[in-house]
């Protein structure tokens, strides 16, 4: 009997996770199409839908706003998780970034055009940072569980949003605000390029600065880090501030390039939570978040495109899950060697 065993590879012999992830994507799509056999559309119909989705030029463009919001949420979380700071607060910080952005662009700085975008983004980042720092302060000085605190803060942010859109900022009796003036709306391509620059900058920060060394040391061996002069409290505060800031920027950019207004939802926009998935899929590497967020952005667009092509919504969800699982499994496989004996 042949037995298949997985043998873990030494760190320097591991496969390229990006290549494995791409293989996983292909495998996932193949399985997803096969699942299509169970739907009224059948395999050929599903395959046709997938081809249509991926060959449409507007498809990539449509995914860009999602990419911006998910990647900026995910990159901050990736660094936080590296330092074993398990926050899930990107969602709340993103919402506050959206609120701050709308308040500034619509109410405070109308008619300033491009300058208001600079000021608005800077202040939105700051608000997100402070909201993130709150979690860091509670963690470091009171020993509070950062995961729970950040989750609760998400609900507070969501409640503030729902209050604003149904009360003071509501227009025409709907639970939504007016649209932003056209002068401050940014193309989704520009917004995603800004996101890309920030991601590269954070990769550089992680790879080539003291903070990167400190983050990994704390995450993998906190006692070692503290023994050799790395200040745990200061690093956690920096990371919570930084991840909050990029999530705030995610909210701001999503507002000006995608949503263009605030509206009420019971669950919130959700990109901050998808960012968690993006961070882990990326192996917690800032650059990897580019790839994982592109994938997740595509899956978002697929959701509507496939439904329009006649695939049932519940099956679309199953297919998305299959694709994410397949990519995750393949990325994990890059750390192993398959031995048949």
């Amino acid at each position, binding site marked *: 009997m042949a037995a298949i065993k997985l043998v873990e590879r*030494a760190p320097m012999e591991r496969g390229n996770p990006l290549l494995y992830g791409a293989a996983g994507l292909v495998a996932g799509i193949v399985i997803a199409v096969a699942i299509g056999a169970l739907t009224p559309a059948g395999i050929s119909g599903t395959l046709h839908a997938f081809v249509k989705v991926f060959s449409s030029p507007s498809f990539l463009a449509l995914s860009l706003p999602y990419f911006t919001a998910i990647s900026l949420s995910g990159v901050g979380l990736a660094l936080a998780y590296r330092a074993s700071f398990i926050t899930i607060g990107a969602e709340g910080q993103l919402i506050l970034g959206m609120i701050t952005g709308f308040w500034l662009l619509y109410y405070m700085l109308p008619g300033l055009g491009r300058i208001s975008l600079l000021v608005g983004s800077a202040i939105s980042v700051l608000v997100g940072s402070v909201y993130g720092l709150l979690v860091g302060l509670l963690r470091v000085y009171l020993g509070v569980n950062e995961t729970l605190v950040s989750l609760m803060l998400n609900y507070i942010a969501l409640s503030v949003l729902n209050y604003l859109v149904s009360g003071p900022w509501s227009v025409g009796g709907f639970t939504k605000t007016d649209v932003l003036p056209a002068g401050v709306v940014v193309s989704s391509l520009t917004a995603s390029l800004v996101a890309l620059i920030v991601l590269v900058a954070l990769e550089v920060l992680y790879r080539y*600065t003291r903070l990167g060394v400190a983050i990994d040391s704390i995450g993998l061996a906190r006692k*070692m880090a503290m023994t050799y002069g790395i200040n745990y409290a200061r690093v956690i505060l920096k990371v919570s501030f930084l991840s909050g800031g990029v999530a705030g920027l995610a909210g701001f950019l999503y507002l000006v390039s995608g949503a263009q207004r605030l509206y009420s939802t019971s669950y919130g926009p959700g990109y901050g939570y998808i960012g968690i998935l993006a961070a882990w899929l990326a192996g917690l590497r800032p650059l990897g978040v580019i790839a994982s967020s592109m994938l997740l952005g595509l899956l978002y667009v697929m959701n509507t495109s496939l439904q329009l092509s006649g695939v049932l919504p519940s099956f679309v969800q199953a297919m998305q899950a299959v694709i994410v699982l397949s990519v995750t499994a393949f990325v994990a496989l890059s750390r192993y060697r398959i031995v048949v004996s």
Partner: protein
Amino acid sequence: MSTIVEAVRAEGIWKTYPGGIVANRDVSISVRQGEILALLGENGAGKTTLVNIIAGILAPDKGSLYVYGRKVRFHGPSDALRYGISLVPQNPRLIESFTVAENIVLAARLAGIKLTLGQVRDAARSVGEEYGIAVDPDAYVWSLSMGERQRAEIVKALVLGAKILLLDEPTTHLSPLESSKLLELTRTLSSQGKSIVFITHRINEALEVADRIAVMRSGRLVALLARGEADREKVLELMFGAERLAEPAGPRGAGRGSVGRVVLEVRGLWVKNDYGAYSVRGVDLTLHEGEILGVAGIAGNGQRELFEALIGIREIEKGKIVVGGSSAVVGKHAAGTSDIAVIPEDRIGWALVPGKSLVFNTAAGMYGSPLGPYRGIRVLWEKARSLTARIVKEMNVITPGLDVPPEALSGGNMQRYIVGRELAKKPRLILSMNPTGGLDVAAARFVHQLLLDAASQGVGILLFSEDLDELIELADRILVMNRGTIVYESLRPFDVREIARRMTV
């Protein structure tokens, strides 16, 4: 006692650990029903190994066990419990957010015994009354003192039907008052027919309660004395070896010593342990340049907490630490932020970051050093690489490369790398704890030579070691730490007998 019943008998027990350390060499010993057997020995004499074998936690390489005359073979602690054997560990292993009764139910489940919370409460109360152990079964463990936790462990063992109790250094974390309470309890238990094995380093405790005293040394059982036969000096000689105590050791006068400038001064230091009790109680010490100052003591007398306070990872409650004769007070994380080298006792996780390359470990380990591979906030990876290459070359570290994680190295090579990295900081002060723990003879000798060389170049070295021979070989002065205070200071040539005596009071 008219008839002697042997509760447990171990015969010809051998145990060798990976790395070749023989912890038990042909040990044969028996525990009689209703007796208190004290097991004495230096650090690393093999006591805990022997008791773990009897409790089914470790399997012996050779030898056999008999319980009430029946040959047994244990595959785990629950097997041993079925025969009424239970180990009370040195550090109570109770879940803090559970009550005492809930902990007992949990332990029962793990041992395959079905008990309800109500049954356990009743059993704990009746056990408590029978033996006079005051432990509230409904008290949460986090609210209990160390002594109460210890007693809770004993109640747990008794509720689960233990007839033979193995107590591994039960008094280490206890105050003198709580210690005497515990000794009293062991007497009560034995008078009710329970058999007790009592590991201790404190000769007085053994003389006070034991019916028989077994002494181990270097893995061997060297003596088994009845109550009347034992006295302090005799036991001391058996524990440490008469020849070792006979004459002053280390007559070498290398010209080093307490003459140079002061590099480290500690005044009136008080530090708490993980359980919130003071385990460093007013320590003073002074270290000069070019001097190796040894801190001796039985493990668990506050050395670890003192070391952690000095390297800046444990809060200081009272007192001060001054480095370099200046007014600079070492606070949190300060050891890493200057020219102080730290060689801790655990390699992976304390000295090294697992899963990261040696190059990364050089950068992380030299994070606070002015000689580290940094410029401003930038990491100079090329410099980190060349530093690593130099350390590997100078220390003859055998490694598949510079990009491998430290786990790929043997223990001896890891330690060569660590010492090399720490010396690359060009330190004035080295703080070190058990730097040769778990190393083979050649690797240990290499580390010793590096420390001696560093001292001869003027570095002040504070060396905590559980290995008395290591201190005798290397140190210029030896301080003995016992119950959180420095109880004795010895200069070369060392009065080993007095050192041993002060360690075991």
